[in-house]
């Protein structure tokens, strides 16, 4: 998070807003700026509790990933903070204030599916969005080029593939260069090339200092784009923190040998040993700190064990996600 700001210290526009945060003159004010503050938010649909006492805060410049299996409350959360859904309990503040049309105009958002008039072309659809957002119509060409839709701009929306519709939704959210971008499953329905393009696009927007809040069930995507992450399951927050924290504190190594029992016994004595489990014929060991394969190999050889397999498993968000959701009871629906 901190390094993020060192590299991208924000856009000049930030000077004009939030001049109230001048109580810490020693630090650049943008460091501490709360964009969104969610407190104790709950929402139920009849008997189904979609969201339970959610607390969350997002600071300026963060690329915040909202992770969770389908039905975990991601879209509900985004719906509430965008004023589309009424929460049963709890409160949230944008830019330190209650939600108003004014604050919504500082946010570009897509929620669930792309929402456009099927019989209008891309330009006409975006004209309507631009008028509602009070942004300049001349910005339309820029966002269409950014999302690779410029060549098809005169075609009616209903002739678009799902991927193009999704890109048009992102184009609409980018209109007027908002301070905050909210993306609900932005790569849904895109092909691998499209996913890569959108990822690049989001990274570019983030690099300009835009705060991004993104819901996704694609862990790989969040890992590649996000600086911070919150994990939701069945409406509850299981974890919130920086992606680096998730990925850095432990590493895993896969070890194979003739005798699994001997290997297990030996690895437990390894100095950086944290925990282990057997998976598909290998011992999967977690170590404290960085894993050094050569050191482990040497250690085992001295114990009279010859490795038949040795590989580092790069800690991925997916593993972490599976762990955290599984350990909190219930079956894991993550795909």
């Amino acid at each position, binding site marked *: 998070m901190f390094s993020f700001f060192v590299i991208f210290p924000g856009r000049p526009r930030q000077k004009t807003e939030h001049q109230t945060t001048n109580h810490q003159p020693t630090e650049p004010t943008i460091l501490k700026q709360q964009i969104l503050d969610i407190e104790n938010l709950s929402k139920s649909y009849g008997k189904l509790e979609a969201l339970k006492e959610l607390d969350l805060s997002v600071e300026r410049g963060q690329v915040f990933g909202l992770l969770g299996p389908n039905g975990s409350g991601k879209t509900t959360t985004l*719906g509430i903070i*965008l*004023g*589309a*859904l*009424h929460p049963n309990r709890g409160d949230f503040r944008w830019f330190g204030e209650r939600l108003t*049309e*004014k604050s*919504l*105009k500082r*946010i570009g*958002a897509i*929620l*669930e*599916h792309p*929402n*456009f*008039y*099927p*019989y*209008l*072309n891309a330009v*006409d659809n975006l*004209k*309507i*969005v631009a*008028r*509602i*957002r*009070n942004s300049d119509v001349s910005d339309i060409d820029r966002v269409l080029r950014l999302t690779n839709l410029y060549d098809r701009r005169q075609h009616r929306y209903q002739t678009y593939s799902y991927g193009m519709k999704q890109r048009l939704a992102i184009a*609409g959210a980018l209109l007027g260069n908002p301070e905050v971008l909210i993306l609900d499953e932005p790569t849904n329905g895109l092909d691998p090339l499209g996913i890569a393009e959108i990822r690049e696009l989001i990274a570019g927007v983030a690099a300009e200092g835009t705060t991004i809040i993104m819901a996704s069930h694609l862990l790989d995507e969040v890992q590649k784009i996000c600086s911070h992450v919150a994990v939701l399951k069945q409406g509850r927050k299981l974890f919130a923190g920086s992606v680096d924290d998730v990925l850095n504190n432990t590493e895993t190594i896969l070890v194979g040998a003739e005798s699994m029992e001997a290997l297990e016994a030996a690895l437990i004595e390894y100095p950086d040993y944290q925990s282990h489990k057997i998976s598909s014929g290998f011992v999967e060991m977690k170590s404290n700190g960085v894993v050094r394969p050569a050191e482990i190999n040497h250690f085992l050889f001295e114990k009279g064990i010859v490795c038949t397999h040795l590989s580092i498993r790069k800690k991925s968000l997916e593993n972490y996600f599976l762990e955290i959701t599984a350990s909190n009871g219930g079956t894991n629906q993550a795909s």
Partner: protein
Amino acid sequence: MNIRNLTYILYTEWLKVRNYRTFWLLAGLYTLTLLLLLFSLQGILNNVTVNINTKSPLPIPEYPVYSFPGVWQNLTYIAGFLKMFPAFLIIILITNEFTFTTYKQQIISGSRRMEFLTAKTLMVAILSVGIALLIGISGMIAGLLQQSPDYEAIVSRKLIFLASHALELFTYLMFASILAFLFRRAGITIIVFLLYSFIIERILVFRLPDAVGRFLPLEACSNLVPLPNSALMKIFGVSFSEYTSVADAGICFVWAMIFYLLIYWLLRKRDL
């Protein structure tokens, strides 16, 4: 809400319908049917009169549909039979916003719910006034083709029927609007609308005493332009009101306000 806001909202609505072929096709068909009905009315009535006269013991005189000032009441009365078509148009325009989920997008993009309601109410008002004007122009043309201009007769008290018809349409379309906002899907809205207007309210009006039945919304709309007195009516000694009653206009206006406020309440209360 100042004038600048209203024109801004209206132009946004214009962008939505400008290239919407279904809308223009339906609007065109309605306009054609309306004009056809208005301009062929005399011919149809003459034909009926001739047919009746072959069997009737009493000679029935021809009824001059387009003579001033009766033309205003005659045409607005007959146009009332086609008013469900603009209602369908409004239902489609409103439910589209829910089907395409563009309403939701507009709200999360920073549009006020009130703005959305204002936009649709403006569309209703424009359609109502536009249709009344079209009938007015048609009446003027048809009348002047038959008789020499007589300023006194043209600008008589009966000219108020054009305004009455505009109010009739406005209230009627606001009723269609609230159903559209309530059900959010065109199919179900149109079915409920037809069921209510042609069956449920008809039964209620039939069952209830007149003093109560006239307060029902669509009945109140229909009462704004009463059936014109024809020579035939006079033969049978029946006489209908020649003017719009202030009470009926008041009932319609109150209903339109109630619908507007109910829609506002619905938009505020409901999740998108």
